[in-house]
C-alpha cells in the first residue's frame, strides 16, 4: 500500500512543479509572443497562444523598433519615432556600466581596506555595517534631495546625475559583498608574497585579485543588473538625453491607448540583457542578493 501512496505523492509533486513552471514562464512567453503579433491578433478571444496555429507571427514591431534611419549609426541621431530604442539602450548601457564599475572599483578598495587593516577608532565591523545599512535606503527618500541638487547644478538629464544616483545602490552592496570575498581569502598567501618582496599593489594584482575574480565579476554583473532595471531615479532625474530603457518602456502608455505589440517588443528588449547576465553568474546570485547571509 505504501507504494501506491508514494506514487500518488510523486504524481502530485510533479503536478505542482509543472504548474509552477507554467506560472513562471507563461507571462514571459505571452510578452514575447505578443511582440510577434499583428495588432489584430493581440486581443483575440480566446487568446492566440500558439504561433503559426492560432496567429501568424510577424516581425513588424521588431522592425519598427530596430530598423530605422539612423538607428545603427549616430546613436543619438535616432531621436523620436522608430529606432529610438537604441538611444535608450545606449544610455542604459553607459549608465549601468559606469555605475557598476565605479561602485565595484571603489567598493572593492574599501572592502579590501576593511578586510585586511584594522581601524582603531571605529571598529571595522561598525564601518561595514554602516555601509550595508545605506543599501536599504529607499530611493524615494533620497530622490528629492538629489533632484534638487542636480537641478541646482544644472545636471538634470545627464549621465553623471543618474550614475551618481545608481552608485548609492551599488557602492554599499559592493563594499559589503567584496569584504566577504576578501575575508575568505587566506591572509597567509599575501604575507608570503610580502616576504618574497612584493609590494602591496603587486600582491593585490598577482594574488588577491585572481583569487576573488569570480566574486568580483559577479558583483559587477549584479550592480549592472540593479542599475539596468532601476526606474524611480530615472523617472525623477532624466527627461530624454540620459533616459534609460525602463523609462522608455514605462512611458509607452502615456500617449493614448497602449500599443501592446510595441510595448511587448520594448519589454522583451529591456529584459534580455539582465536575464542573460544573471544566467552567466547564477552560482553567485543567491549569495549576492542575500548579502552573503546565505551561500547558494
Amino acid at each position: 500500500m505504501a507504494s501506491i501512496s508514494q506514487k500518488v505523492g510523486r504524481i502530485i509533486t510533479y503536478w505542482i512543479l509543472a504548474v509552477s513552471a507554467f506560472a513562471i514562464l507563461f507571462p514571459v512567453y505571452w510578452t514575447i509572443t505578443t511582440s510577434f503579433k499583428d495588432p489584430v491578433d493581440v486581443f483575440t478571444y480566446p487568446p492566440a497562444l500558439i504561433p503559426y496555429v492560432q496567429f501568424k507571427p510577424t516581425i513588424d514591431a521588431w522592425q519598427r523598433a530596430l530598423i530605422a534611419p539612423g538607428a545603427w549609426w549616430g546613436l543619438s541621431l535616432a531621436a523620436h519615432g522608430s529606432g529610438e530604442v537604441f538611444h535608450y539602450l545606449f544610455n542604459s548601457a553607459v549608465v549601468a556600466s559606469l555605475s557598476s564599475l565605479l561602485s565595484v572599483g571603489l567598493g572593492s578598495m574599501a572592502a579590501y581596506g576593511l578586510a585586511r587593516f584594522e581601524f582603531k577608532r571605529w571598529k571595522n565591523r561598525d564601518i561595514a555595517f554602516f555601509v550595508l545599512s545605506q543599501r536599504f535606503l529607499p530611493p524615494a527618500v533620497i530622490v528629492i534631495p538629489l533632484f534638487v541638487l542636480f537641478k541646482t547644478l544644472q545636471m538634470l538629464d545627464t549621465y553623471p546625475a543618474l550614475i551618481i544616483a545608481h552608485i548609492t545602490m551599488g557602492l554599499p552592496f559592493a563594499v559589503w559583498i567584496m569584504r566577504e570575498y576578501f575575508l575568505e581569502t587566506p591572509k597567509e598567501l599575501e604575507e608570503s608574497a610580502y616576504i618574497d618582496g612584493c609590494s602591496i599593489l603587486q600582491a593585490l594584482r598577482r594574488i588577491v585579485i585572481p583569487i576573488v575574480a569570480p566574486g568580483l565579476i559577479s558583483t559587477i554583473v549584479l550592480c549592472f543588473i540593479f542599475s539596468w532595471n532601476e526606474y524611480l531615479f530615472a523617472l525623477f532625474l532624466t527627461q530624454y538625453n540620459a533616459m534609460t530603457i525602463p523609462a522608455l518602456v514605462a512611458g509607452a502608455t502615456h500617449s493614448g491607448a497602449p500599443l501592446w505589440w510595441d510595448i511587448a517588443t520594448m519589454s522583451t528588449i529591456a529584459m534580455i540583457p539582465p536575464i542573460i547576465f544573471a544566467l552567466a553568474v547564477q552560482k553567485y546570485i543567491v549569495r549576492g542578493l542575500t548579502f552573503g547571509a546565505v551561500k547558494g
Partner: protein
Amino acid sequence: MRFRLNEKNIKFVLVAPAIVILLAVAIYPTVFSLYLAFCSWELTGGPYAQIVPVFTGLKNFERLLQDHRFWRDVQTTVSFVVSSVGLEFLIGLGLALILNTEIRGRKYWRVIFLVPMMMTPVAVGYTWRMMYHMERGPLNYLLSFLFIPAQNWMGDRTIALFSCVLMDVWEWTPFMILVLLAGLQSIPVEPYEAAIVDGASKVQIFRYVTFPLLYPVIVVGVLLRALEAFKVFDIIYVTTAGGPALSTEAVTLYVQIIGLRELSLGYASAVAYVLLIMVIALTLIFISWMRRRG
C-alpha cells in the same frame, strides 16, 4: 616630503573614497531631506513659486496627520508588504521542500527561477497588465477552465491590490525558493538520521529538525523581501498607477505625485521620511541579525 603608501596610511586611502562618496550621495541627501521635511518648498505656482525652502517647523507633519490619503497609503503599503512576503514565504517554503527531495533537473529550475527575478520590473508590470486584461487577457481565459469567473483584475478596487501582490509574488517567490533551498541543503544529514532512529514522523521532523535549523535563513529571506517590498514602485506605477480609487497607491507613488507632479518638495520629503522610518526599523533588525551571525 613625498607622500608614500605604507601600512599606516594605505587603509585610509583605500576606504576614504567610498566613505566620502557615501557621505556625499547618501548621507547628505538623507539629512537634507530631513531638513526639507520641516520646510515649505513649492516649485509650482508661477510668480508665487518658492525659490528657496522656507522653514515652517512642524507644519508638514501637522498636514501629514490629517492627510487621509497618506494614512490610507501607509495602510496599503503595509498590507502589500505583509501579504506579498507572507505568500512568497509560504509558496517558497513549499516549493523549496519539494525541490529539496530527489527531483530531476534541479539545474534547470534555477534557470527558470532567475527569469522573473532579473526581468526589468517595468517589463514585469506591462507583462501582467496584458495578463490581467479583463475581456481578452490570457489570465481570465486560463481561469475559465477552472470555472473561475472573469475578474476585472486592475479595475476592481476590491481586488486591485491583490493583483499587485500577485505580481510581486510572481516576481519574487523564486528568490524565496532559492534562498530556502540553499538553507535546506546546508542542513547536515545527522539530525535527520537521529530523528528517524527515534521514530519521528514527517511532521515532527519538519517541526523539530528542519524548521529550527532553517530558521536563520527564513529570517534573512523574509526580512530582505520585506525591505524591498516597502520600496515597491515600478510594478504598481505601470499597471494600476495607484488606482482604482487610490486602492493600490503605495507611499512611494504618493511621494512621486507630490514631489514630481505637484513639485511640493517639502511635503514630499515629510512623506518620504515616514517611509524611511518604517524601513529603518526593519534594517536595524536585519543588521542586528547579521551581527549575531558573526
